[in-house]
């Protein structure tokens, strides 16, 4: 049985009153929803909390699932909406590669940023993008680069998604050039 079919069958069981069937959905999806949340915040505790909240929202909205879209798309869209509200409530990310904000970081944040691996710094740089580009990039790579599924989850046209991805990558590249100069500066200071 395909995973989406299994999820839809479990959803039907839950609606019929078998609450334990929801555990199957949670077990199949826990890693993916926690990972998606993690990619939006890079904070493990917050990511698990956000994923829990997404599961509750999915449970409450299960009766609204009509099977028009794949279960995976429906659940990811619910999770994304839930994460969006939570991140809005949490306030803007403290992490930024913009010089003005980077230098206002507390403690050794700049130092750790400089010392951190380049790849991880690029992933963190995604968090500093404006919301529309950040969501497009995070969901696109989470959905294994499927433009159609990402556009459905975000509720936008494929053309709009492609434009946002292009612009988002450009902004990211620009931020990474700044990062490179900070790292060079950090290395000089260490010598």
């Amino acid at each position: 049985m395909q995973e989406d079919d299994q999820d839809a069958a479990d959803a039907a069981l839950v609606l019929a009153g078998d609450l334990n069937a929801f555990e199957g959905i949670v077990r199949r999806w826990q890693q993916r929803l926690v990972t998606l949340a993690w990619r939006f915040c890079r904070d493990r505790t917050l990511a698990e909390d956000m994923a829990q909240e997404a599961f509750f929202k999915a449970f409450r909205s299960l009766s609204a699932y009509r099977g028009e879209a794949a279960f995976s798309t429906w659940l990811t869209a619910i999770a994304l909406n839930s994460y969006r509200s939570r991140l809005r409530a949490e306030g803007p990310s403290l992490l930024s590669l913009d010089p003005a904000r980077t230098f206002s970081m507390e403690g050794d944040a700049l130092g750790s940023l400089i010392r951190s691996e380049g790849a991880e710094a690029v992933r963190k740089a995604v968090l500093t993008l404006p919301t529309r580009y950040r969501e497009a990039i995070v969901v696109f790579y989470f959905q294994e680069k499927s433009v159609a599924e990402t556009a459905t989850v975000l509720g936008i046209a494929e053309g709009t998604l492609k434009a946002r991805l292009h612009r988002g990558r450009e902004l990211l590249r620009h931020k990474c050039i700044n990062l490179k100069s900070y790292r060079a500066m950090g290395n000089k200071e260490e010598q």
Partner: protein
Amino acid sequence: MTPEDIDRILSSDDMLEPASGFASDVMDRVRCLADEPPPRRFPWLRFGFGLISCLIVAASGTVLAPRLEHSVIGLCPSLTSLSGIEPEVGYAVAALIVSFGFISYRKLRVTT
């Protein structure tokens, strides 16, 4: 750093393994959620009745009060000193009676 480098880095981001008790924690809270009674819906019907009643009382008061003012004062000379406020007192009493009427009607329907 080229766009290809960025694409490669973002494609190779790891999956995060949730804590071991994550699924059971979620299920515990889901069971609690399922036990809770469904949230009460806003009583639109009762609100509608109330609003219509208020509008009727206000409209009838606006039309009738000027006509009845002199006759009521004529009937009860002792109320002459209250001539400035008696329409408002009348509306308040009428609204109170109508409200109690609605409440009693709902209670009667629930108990029967």
